C-alpha cells in the first residue's frame, strides 16, 4: 500500500514529471505497463484540464494530488479551486468532431477510456476529480 500527497503550483512543465511518477508507481505495484501508461496519460489530461479550464489558463495556481494504491486498485484525487468543471453530456463522436472542427473534449475522453471510474464534485468552492483503475496484472 502506498499513499502519496503532493500540493504544488500547477504548471504545464510539471506534467511530464507527475505523469512519469504515476506510471512508475503503478509499475512498482505490478500494473501492466500498457495500463500504467494509459493511466498516466489520463493524469496529464486531468491536470491540463484543470489549468486550462478551471484556472482559465493561469499556471502556478494550487493543485493537490493524492495517490492511493491499495486493495488491488489505484485511486487519485485532485483538489483545486477555480471555475467549476463543465462535463460534456454529448457522447464522444470523433467523426462528428472532425466534421465540425471541434477540438475540445478530447482530454476528458482520454481520461474516461483510460480509467475504470471518473468522478467530479465541488464542495465549498473547491473542486475535486477522483479517478481510479483496478489491477489487471
Amino acid at each position: 500500500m502506498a499513499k502519496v500527497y503532493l500540493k504544488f503550483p500547477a504548471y504545464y512543465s510539471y506534467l511530464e514529471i507527475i505523469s512519469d511518477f504515476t506510471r512508475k508507481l503503478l509499475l512498482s505495484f505490478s500494473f501492466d505497463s500498457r495500463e500504467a501508461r494509459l493511466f498516466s496519460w489520463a493524469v496529464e489530461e486531468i491536470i491540463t484540464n484543470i489549468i486550462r479550464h478551471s484556472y482559465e489558463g493561469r499556471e502556478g495556481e494550487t493543485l493537490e494530488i493524492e495517490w492511493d494504491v491499495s486493495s488491488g486498485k489505484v485511486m487519485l484525487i485532485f483538489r483545486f479551486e477555480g471555475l467549476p468543471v463543465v462535463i460534456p453530456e454529448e457522447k464522444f463522436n470523433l467523426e462528428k468532431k472532425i466534421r465540425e472542427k471541434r477540438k475540445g473534449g478530447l482530454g476528458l475522453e482520454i481520461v474516461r477510456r483510460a480509467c475504470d471510474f471518473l468522478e467530479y464534485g465541488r464542495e465549498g468552492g473547491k473542486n475535486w476529480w477522483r479517478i481510479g483503475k483496478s489491477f489487471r496484472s
Partner: protein
Amino acid sequence: MDLELKKKEESGILLIKPVGRIDPITVEVFDKAIEDAIKSGKYNIIIDCSELSYISSAGLGVLIGYIEEVREKGGDIVICCTSSEVYEIFDLLGFTKIYKFFPDTEKARNFFRSG
C-alpha cells in the same frame, strides 16, 4: 522537454517530423507548422512520428482541426512510423480508424504518389 520540428518537402509531399513531446506547451509549434503548410498550398502531409515520444489531446486536436480542410482540397494528413506507445494514444480515441497510418515513410509517400 522541447519540441523540434523537422520538415522535408519532396515531389509535392511535405513530411513533418516532430521530435519530442506534443503537449500543451509545445502544441502551438505543431499547429503553426500545419497551418503554414496549408496556407502555402501543401495538402499532402505526412506526420513522421518516429521521434515523437508523446502527443496529448491538444496535439490530437490540431489534427482534428485541419484534416477536413486538407481532404476538401484533395490532399490528406497521414501518419507514419509511430511507436507502439504513441499508436496507443491515437488508437484510444479511434484516430486509427479515421486517419491513415503507415509503418514507414516510403509507404506513406507511395500513398500520395498512387493517389
